[in-house]
């Protein structure tokens, strides 16, 4: 399927409330970090892919215009990819297809978000049309609480068990975040603190929800020739999958979630994966909400439907478990939306190249990166491997 393509470097910013920099400066931080780390000259880049959330979030429309200089893109071919929350992974796909098609050998991909200068929940409410859905879908938590309820009801999972597993996930990830220098929220949480936190949208409580982060992520996709030329450790793209479904939230099934199942299937087929839990060494699942992470385990075939809570409580998906998920702390601890999906890819690439530092999963050779977007509508999965 196309030419072999590898990620040969990434750069992330420190995440948080970055009032110390302007938005272009934030993008520059990631891009400069990437070039410094890889030693690649911006002059050698043949194409640039840029993306963010929609203009209402940015306060600026078509942000690639605004970022032209800091992306080092002036005089170069450009693409502006945007698919709502899944923008980050859609950016990675654009970079992948550009190189795999043979139309470029070295492509820079950059995603970014300065969420603390905008209003993310107001923006997400405008994703839904003004006539029907806008009145009852209040931002992301509204959608995700409905999905969570659908999932636990459908599989008859007792509320207490869902709570217990979600609490375990958030405590683990906020601990994991201490080992990721770029993570935003790092906190040692106690079960009492999590279980008694204020309700955002029932049954979702504060520590079940990702933060608003400012951040950017940059990455280079390279052809085989460029991998050889630069001699950098490659994370080979083994599989890509993406699927989208109905715009009307009430029309679709969100527990046995077809677009998530299909996205993973496409990527597994391409990568030749038949037993993901066994074959994958680490997964960076897009987990803006604790509950959703478990739902993904099931849709991605890490376990059977209705089984995720039990396995989480057994530690199957924790750092020392059979299939560690989100050792970076994931989206739950760091969420600059336009960059978040790309962060997942960057983390998955760091893992298979042995460069993840304190949160390295020893010997990881095959990893999964994922992102989700739209009105709970899109899912994208990328499989990366240390071998071609």
């Amino acid at each position, binding site marked *: 399927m196309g030419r072999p393509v590898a990620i040969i470097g990434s750069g992330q910013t420190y995440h948080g409330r970055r009032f110390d920099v302007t938005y272009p400066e934030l993008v520059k931080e990631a891009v400069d970090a990437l070039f410094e780390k890889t030693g690649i000259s911006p002059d050698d880049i043949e194409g640039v892919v840029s993306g963010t959330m929609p203009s209402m979030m940015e306060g600026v429309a078509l942000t690639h215009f605004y970022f032209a200089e800091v992306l080092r893109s002036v005089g170069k071919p450009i693409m502006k990819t*945007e698919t709502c929350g899944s923008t980050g992974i859609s950016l990675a*796909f654009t970079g992948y297809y550009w190189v795999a098609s043979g139309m470029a050998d070295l492509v820079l991909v950059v995603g970014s978000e300065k969420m603390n200068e905008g209003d993310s929940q107001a923006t997400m409410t405008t994703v839904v049309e003004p006539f029907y859905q806008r009145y009852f879908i209040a931002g992301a938590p509204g959608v995700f609480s409905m999905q969570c309820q659908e999932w636990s009801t459908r599989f008859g999972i007792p509320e207490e068990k869902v709570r217990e597993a979600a609490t375990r996930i958030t405590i683990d990830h906020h601990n994991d975040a201490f080992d990721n220098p770029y993570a935003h929220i790092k906190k040692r949480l106690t079960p009492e603190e999590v279980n008694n936190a204020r309700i955002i949208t029932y049954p979702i409580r504060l520590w079940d929800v990702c933060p608003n982060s400012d951040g950017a992520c940059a990455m280079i996709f390279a052809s085989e020739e460029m991998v050889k030329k630069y001699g950098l450790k490659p994370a080979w793209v083994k599989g890509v999958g993406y699927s989208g479904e109905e*715009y009307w939230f009430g029309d679709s099934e969100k527990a046995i979630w077809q677009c998530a199942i299909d996205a993973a299937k496409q990527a597994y087929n391409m990568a030749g994966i038949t037993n993901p839990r066994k074959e994958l060494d680490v997964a960076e699942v897009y987990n803006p909400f604790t509950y959703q992470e478990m739902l993904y385990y099931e849709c991605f075939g890490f376990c059977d439907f209705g089984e995720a809570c039990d396995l989480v409580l057994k530690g199957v998906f924790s750092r020392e478990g059979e299939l560690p998920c989100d050792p970076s702390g994931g989206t739950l601890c760091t969420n600059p939306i336009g960059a978040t999906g790309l962060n997942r890819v960057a983390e998955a690439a760091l893992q298979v190249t042995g460069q993840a530092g304190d949160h390295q999963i020893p010997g990881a050779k095959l990893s999964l990166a994922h992102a989700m977007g739209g009105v709970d509508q899109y899912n994208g999965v990328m499989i990366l491997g240390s071998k071609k």
Partner: protein
Amino acid sequence: MTNRVGIVEVAMTSGAETKDYFLDQVFKISKEVLDKSGITRDDVGTVISASSDVFHGGMSCANSYYWDAGAAFLKNGSRQDGESLFAFIYAVMRILTGNYDTALVLGVCKGSENPENDVLTHFFTDPFYQRQMGLNETIAAALQKREYMDRFGITEEQCAGVVVKNLKNALGNPYAHVKKKVDLDEVLASEVVMDPLKSMECAPKSEGIIAMVLAKEELAKKLTDKPVWFKGYGSSIDGFYLGDRDLLEGELPNAAKRAYDAAGIKDPRKEIDVAEVCEPYAFQEMLWCEDLGFCGRGEGGKLLESGATAADGDIPVNPSGGVLAMNPYVSRGLYRLAEGFLQIRGQAGERQLDKQVNTALAHSTHGFAGQCHAVAIIGS
């Protein structure tokens, strides 16, 4: 590139603003292009659309809204934000990898649900410097036009001449939005909207939903007797701040060179049979013709006056009537490509050029004074 990508069919709405329901329009056009191609939704490999949140009736994450109306339900797809020629090229890339045999490309912009274009282009500005000045695309174009006139002696009559030519062409185009026979005096007498730009030199705000089916070589040949082939593509972006740029030495020559190199074109004036150029402001057609290598620097006015760019000239530019006759901001690049496609197939109706058309150029631009350009070459 080993295998080729062909355009199989195209379907599009006219530019006139309508009260038709947005999703019905997207559905109808997507269905029409699949029917024309003789394929069903199941045969579609991937769907790449173009739209822009700021040109989308107040809705964010534009493609969420029309994802299923646009034939993409449970398909692998993506979106280019801002300009539709980029969606075309992304679909070409996807087919070239071999991952997909077919692609549906959509350009979606429902002008009737948007405010005036410049209310929206104002949001291209950064919040600190440009926004305070009220900068928008028409102001940027006015600065560019003034510079063009000052540096190269381009005249008001020449600028008006572009309008007369393109609106005359539009009379033969059933998809055009502005259909009006105008003469030079009328254009020259139209109200000055942003000195030195006059109202008739500026494009309207239009509806524009357009769909194209692409297929890999073998399949394209099976689906149609007259596939039109992708030959080359180039894009380039300029710096953001107008004050940092020479508005007459922009990035289009770079974009064009990339497309010409890929298509093996050495003498564009001779080898290109028809060019569809994105001219939201009349003078830009002349400037872009220079950038595309149809004439020398500063000679765009003379090129127009010579009649070379008229429908019966040696390098017809905008036989569709161009963007001056129809301006669905995001979709306009695909509309340029569609006209090239129809001309090559000999299906351009009343406006079919009176010569053999083998190679067509489609150009699109968005951003202030042409910050970003894309060029695609297609051929028989």
